[in-house]
Protein backbone atom coordinates (compact mmCIF):
# COMPACT_ATOMS: atom_id res chain seq x y z
CA UNK A 1 0.00 0.00 0.00
CA UNK A 2 1.35 3.41 -1.03
CA UNK A 3 2.17 5.36 2.15
CA UNK A 4 2.78 8.75 0.53
CA UNK A 5 0.70 11.67 1.72
CA UNK A 6 -0.77 12.11 -1.73
CA UNK A 7 -1.84 8.47 -1.97
CA UNK A 8 -3.41 8.55 1.50
CA UNK A 9 -5.22 11.78 0.61
CA UNK A 10 -6.56 10.09 -2.54
CA UNK A 11 -7.79 7.08 -0.52
CA UNK A 12 -9.55 9.37 1.95
CA UNK A 13 -11.15 11.38 -0.84
CA UNK A 14 -12.33 8.19 -2.59
CA UNK A 15 -13.83 6.87 0.65
CA UNK A 16 -15.64 10.12 1.36
CA UNK A 17 -17.04 10.37 -2.16
CA UNK A 18 -18.31 6.81 -1.77
CA UNK A 19 -20.10 7.30 1.56
CA UNK A 20 -21.53 10.78 1.09
CA UNK A 21 -23.54 11.37 -2.07
CA UNK A 22 -23.80 15.09 -1.28
CA UNK A 23 -20.09 15.70 -1.85
CA UNK A 24 -19.61 17.46 -5.19
CA UNK A 25 -15.88 18.09 -5.06
CA UNK A 26 -12.89 17.44 -2.81
CA UNK A 27 -9.89 19.76 -2.96
CA UNK A 28 -6.63 19.33 -1.11
CA UNK A 29 -5.61 22.23 1.10
CA UNK A 30 -1.90 22.94 1.12
CA UNK A 31 0.12 24.53 3.91
CA UNK A 32 3.46 26.32 3.46
CA UNK A 33 6.05 23.98 1.86
CA UNK A 34 8.19 23.73 5.00
CA UNK A 35 5.13 22.57 6.98
CA UNK A 36 3.79 20.28 4.29
CA UNK A 37 6.94 18.08 4.29
CA UNK A 38 6.52 17.44 8.03
CA UNK A 39 4.91 14.00 8.61
CA UNK A 40 2.99 15.52 11.52
CA UNK A 41 1.33 18.06 9.22
CA UNK A 42 -2.18 16.71 8.59
CA UNK A 43 -3.66 15.92 5.21
CA UNK A 44 -6.23 18.65 4.67
CA UNK A 45 -9.30 18.11 2.51
CA UNK A 46 -11.85 20.75 1.61
CA UNK A 47 -15.11 18.93 0.88
CA UNK A 48 -17.79 20.77 -1.08
CA UNK A 49 -20.96 19.22 0.28
CA UNK A 50 -24.50 20.28 -0.58
CA UNK A 51 -25.66 18.59 2.64
CA UNK A 52 -23.64 20.68 5.04
CA UNK A 53 -24.48 23.92 6.80
CA UNK A 54 -23.22 27.39 5.92
CA UNK A 55 -20.89 27.83 8.86
CA UNK A 56 -17.73 29.14 7.24
CA UNK A 57 -14.42 27.34 7.58
CA UNK A 58 -14.66 24.90 10.49
CA UNK A 59 -11.77 22.43 10.33
CA UNK A 60 -12.41 19.14 12.13
CA UNK A 61 -9.48 17.00 13.20
CA UNK A 62 -8.93 13.25 12.87
CA UNK A 63 -6.02 11.14 14.00
CA UNK A 64 -3.91 8.77 11.94
CA UNK A 65 -5.33 5.25 11.69
CA UNK A 66 -2.59 2.87 10.68
CA UNK A 67 -4.84 -0.23 10.52
CA UNK A 68 -6.91 1.31 7.74
CA UNK A 69 -3.95 2.77 5.85
CA UNK A 70 -4.37 6.34 7.08
CA UNK A 71 -0.78 7.06 8.04
CA UNK A 72 -1.22 10.76 8.74
CA UNK A 73 -3.59 12.88 10.79
CA UNK A 74 -6.22 14.65 8.73
CA UNK A 75 -8.25 17.81 8.79
CA UNK A 76 -11.58 17.97 6.98
CA UNK A 77 -13.28 21.24 6.11
CA UNK A 78 -16.85 20.93 4.82
CA UNK A 79 -18.30 23.87 2.92
CA UNK A 80 -21.42 24.39 0.84
CA UNK A 81 -21.14 24.92 -2.94
CA UNK A 82 -21.89 28.63 -2.40
CA UNK A 83 -19.15 28.95 0.21
CA UNK A 84 -16.76 27.24 -2.19
CA UNK A 85 -17.60 29.75 -4.91
CA UNK A 86 -16.70 32.56 -2.51
CA UNK A 87 -13.51 30.78 -1.47
CA UNK A 88 -12.53 30.36 -5.08
CA UNK A 89 -12.92 34.10 -5.62
CA UNK A 90 -11.01 34.91 -2.43
CA UNK A 91 -8.58 32.09 -1.59
CA UNK A 92 -6.90 34.35 0.97
CA UNK A 93 -9.87 33.82 3.24
CA UNK A 94 -8.54 30.34 4.04
CA UNK A 95 -7.00 30.15 7.54
CA UNK A 96 -3.43 29.18 8.53
CA UNK A 97 -1.96 30.30 5.20
CA UNK A 98 -3.58 27.33 3.45
CA UNK A 99 -4.16 27.45 -0.28
CA UNK A 100 -6.30 25.42 -2.63
CA UNK A 101 -4.45 22.48 -4.18
CA UNK A 102 -5.16 19.35 -6.17
CA UNK A 103 -8.78 18.56 -7.01
CA UNK A 104 -9.72 14.93 -6.50
CA UNK A 105 -12.02 13.70 -9.22
CA UNK A 106 -15.18 11.84 -8.33
CA UNK A 107 -15.05 8.32 -9.70
CA UNK A 108 -17.60 7.84 -12.47
CA UNK A 109 -19.62 4.65 -11.87
CA UNK A 110 -19.19 2.12 -14.66
CA UNK A 111 -22.24 2.00 -16.89
CA UNK A 112 -23.75 -1.01 -18.68
CA UNK A 113 -21.80 -2.21 -21.68
Amino acid at each position, binding site marked *: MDRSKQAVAQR*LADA*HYAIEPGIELIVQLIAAPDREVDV*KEPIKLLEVNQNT*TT*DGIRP*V*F*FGAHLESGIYY*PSVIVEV*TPREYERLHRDPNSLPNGWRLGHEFAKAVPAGPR
Partner: protein
Amino acid sequence: MSASYVEWRIAYARQALADLHARDRILEHSDVPDCQQLHFLQMACEKVCKAYLCGQGVDPETLRSSHAYISGPLPVIARQQFAQETGGPQSDRTWVINSIRALARKIELLAPAIDAGGRQPSNCEYPWTGPDGTVQVPCGYNFGLDLLYEKAGRHLLKILYSAATELTKLPPL
Protein backbone atom coordinates in the same frame (compact mmCIF):
# COMPACT_ATOMS: atom_id res chain seq x y z
CA MET B 1 -28.84 33.88 44.31
CA SER B 2 -28.98 30.95 41.90
CA ALA B 3 -27.33 31.06 38.48
CA SER B 4 -29.55 31.74 35.48
CA TYR B 5 -30.30 29.23 32.74
CA VAL B 6 -28.21 31.38 30.38
CA GLU B 7 -25.21 31.09 32.67
CA TRP B 8 -25.62 27.31 32.74
CA ARG B 9 -26.03 27.19 28.96
CA ILE B 10 -22.80 29.14 28.44
CA ALA B 11 -20.95 27.10 31.07
CA TYR B 12 -21.91 23.76 29.48
CA ALA B 13 -21.02 25.05 26.02
CA ARG B 14 -17.60 26.34 27.15
CA GLN B 15 -16.79 23.01 28.73
CA ALA B 16 -17.97 21.20 25.59
CA LEU B 17 -15.53 23.27 23.52
CA ALA B 18 -12.75 22.41 25.98
CA ASP B 19 -13.62 18.71 25.60
CA LEU B 20 -13.53 19.00 21.80
CA HIS B 21 -10.14 20.72 21.90
CA ALA B 22 -8.85 18.03 24.26
CA ARG B 23 -10.03 15.41 21.75
CA ASP B 24 -8.08 17.20 19.01
CA ARG B 25 -4.92 17.16 21.13
CA ILE B 26 -5.32 13.45 21.91
CA LEU B 27 -5.68 12.65 18.19
CA GLU B 28 -2.24 14.13 17.56
CA HIS B 29 -0.82 11.05 19.30
CA SER B 30 -1.56 7.88 17.37
CA ASP B 31 -0.36 5.67 20.25
CA VAL B 32 -3.21 6.78 22.54
CA PRO B 33 -6.05 4.21 22.58
CA ASP B 34 -9.24 5.14 20.74
CA CYS B 35 -11.33 5.03 23.92
CA GLN B 36 -9.72 8.25 25.15
CA GLN B 37 -10.73 10.44 22.21
CA LEU B 38 -14.16 8.76 22.16
CA HIS B 39 -14.57 9.57 25.85
CA PHE B 40 -13.99 13.27 25.13
CA LEU B 41 -16.30 13.07 22.12
CA GLN B 42 -19.07 11.57 24.30
CA MET B 43 -18.56 14.23 26.98
CA ALA B 44 -18.57 17.03 24.41
CA CYS B 45 -21.79 15.76 22.84
CA GLU B 46 -23.46 15.50 26.22
CA LYS B 47 -22.48 19.04 27.21
CA VAL B 48 -23.51 20.58 23.89
CA CYS B 49 -26.92 18.93 24.27
CA LYS B 50 -27.25 20.05 27.89
CA ALA B 51 -26.24 23.59 26.89
CA TYR B 52 -28.90 23.51 24.19
CA LEU B 53 -31.54 22.22 26.65
CA CYS B 54 -30.65 24.93 29.23
CA GLY B 55 -31.15 27.45 26.43
CA GLN B 56 -34.57 25.92 25.83
CA GLY B 57 -35.55 26.49 29.47
CA VAL B 58 -34.89 23.02 30.91
CA ASP B 59 -33.93 23.24 34.59
CA PRO B 60 -30.14 22.63 34.82
CA GLU B 61 -30.66 20.65 38.03
CA THR B 62 -32.62 17.98 36.17
CA LEU B 63 -29.79 17.63 33.62
CA ARG B 64 -26.98 17.03 36.06
CA SER B 65 -27.66 13.45 37.03
CA SER B 66 -27.99 11.78 33.63
CA HIS B 67 -25.79 11.07 30.60
CA ALA B 68 -28.78 10.13 28.41
CA TYR B 69 -29.11 13.48 26.72
CA ILE B 70 -27.43 12.95 23.36
CA SER B 71 -29.57 10.88 21.03
CA GLY B 72 -32.64 13.10 21.53
CA PRO B 73 -31.31 16.66 21.24
CA LEU B 74 -28.39 16.17 18.81
CA PRO B 75 -30.52 15.45 15.69
CA VAL B 76 -32.74 18.37 16.71
CA ILE B 77 -29.70 20.68 16.90
CA ALA B 78 -28.60 19.47 13.45
CA ARG B 79 -32.08 19.98 11.99
CA GLN B 80 -32.23 23.46 13.46
CA GLN B 81 -28.94 24.38 11.82
CA PHE B 82 -30.27 23.22 8.46
CA ALA B 83 -33.50 25.12 9.04
CA GLN B 84 -31.50 28.31 9.54
CA GLU B 85 -30.03 27.98 6.07
CA THR B 86 -31.28 30.66 3.75
CA GLY B 87 -31.09 31.05 0.01
CA GLY B 88 -30.17 28.51 -2.63
CA PRO B 89 -31.86 25.23 -3.39
CA GLN B 90 -32.42 23.04 -0.34
CA SER B 91 -31.59 19.39 -0.87
CA ASP B 92 -33.28 16.60 1.07
CA ARG B 93 -31.27 16.26 4.27
CA THR B 94 -33.39 13.47 5.77
CA TRP B 95 -30.62 10.91 5.41
CA VAL B 96 -28.13 13.27 7.10
CA ILE B 97 -30.41 13.75 10.10
CA ASN B 98 -31.07 9.99 10.26
CA SER B 99 -27.33 9.26 10.10
CA ILE B 100 -26.67 11.81 12.86
CA ARG B 101 -29.44 10.22 14.95
CA ALA B 102 -27.81 6.79 14.61
CA LEU B 103 -24.36 8.18 15.44
CA ALA B 104 -25.75 10.11 18.42
CA ARG B 105 -27.14 6.88 19.87
CA LYS B 106 -23.80 5.10 19.38
CA ILE B 107 -22.00 7.98 21.12
CA GLU B 108 -24.52 8.02 23.96
CA LEU B 109 -23.83 4.32 24.57
CA LEU B 110 -20.13 5.09 25.15
CA ALA B 111 -21.00 6.38 28.65
CA PRO B 112 -20.71 3.66 31.29
CA ALA B 113 -24.08 4.58 32.80
CA ILE B 114 -25.88 3.93 29.49
CA ASP B 115 -25.93 0.25 28.57
CA ALA B 116 -29.23 -0.31 26.73
CA GLY B 117 -30.73 -2.30 29.59
CA GLY B 118 -27.57 -4.35 30.03
CA ARG B 119 -27.40 -5.35 26.36
CA GLN B 120 -24.44 -3.04 25.61
CA PRO B 121 -22.07 -2.75 28.56
CA SER B 122 -19.09 -1.59 26.45
CA ASN B 123 -18.00 1.92 27.38
CA CYS B 124 -14.98 4.23 27.20
CA GLU B 125 -14.13 4.38 30.89
CA TYR B 126 -14.44 1.15 32.86
CA PRO B 127 -13.85 -2.56 32.24
CA TRP B 128 -16.92 -4.74 31.79
CA THR B 129 -17.79 -8.40 31.41
CA GLY B 130 -18.06 -9.52 27.78
CA PRO B 131 -20.63 -12.02 26.44
CA ASP B 132 -18.12 -14.87 26.87
CA GLY B 133 -17.55 -14.00 30.54
CA THR B 134 -14.10 -12.46 30.03
CA VAL B 135 -13.24 -9.00 31.31
CA GLN B 136 -13.05 -6.43 28.52
CA VAL B 137 -10.95 -3.27 28.81
CA PRO B 138 -11.83 -0.02 26.99
CA CYS B 139 -8.21 0.67 25.96
CA GLY B 140 -8.08 -2.65 24.08
CA TYR B 141 -11.57 -2.63 22.62
CA ASN B 142 -12.63 -1.77 19.09
CA PHE B 143 -15.75 0.38 19.40
CA GLY B 144 -16.33 0.36 15.65
CA LEU B 145 -16.97 4.07 15.62
CA ASP B 146 -14.78 6.13 13.29
CA LEU B 147 -16.35 9.45 12.33
CA LEU B 148 -13.87 9.81 9.49
CA TYR B 149 -15.68 7.00 7.68
CA GLU B 150 -19.21 7.14 9.10
CA LYS B 151 -21.97 8.72 7.05
CA ALA B 152 -22.35 12.32 8.25
CA GLY B 153 -19.48 11.77 10.71
CA ARG B 154 -17.54 14.86 9.68
CA HIS B 155 -20.74 16.84 9.65
CA LEU B 156 -21.59 15.77 13.19
CA LEU B 157 -18.25 17.14 14.41
CA LYS B 158 -18.78 20.36 12.52
CA ILE B 159 -22.21 20.72 14.16
CA LEU B 160 -20.71 20.14 17.59
CA TYR B 161 -18.10 22.88 17.12
CA SER B 162 -20.59 25.24 15.58
CA ALA B 163 -23.31 24.67 18.19
CA ALA B 164 -20.89 24.86 21.12
CA THR B 165 -19.47 28.14 19.82
CA GLU B 166 -22.94 29.57 19.24
CA LEU B 167 -24.20 28.49 22.67
CA THR B 168 -21.35 30.30 24.45
CA LYS B 169 -22.66 33.64 23.19
CA LEU B 170 -24.73 35.93 25.38
CA PRO B 171 -28.26 36.58 24.08
CA PRO B 172 -28.72 40.02 22.49
CA LEU B 173 -30.00 42.68 24.90
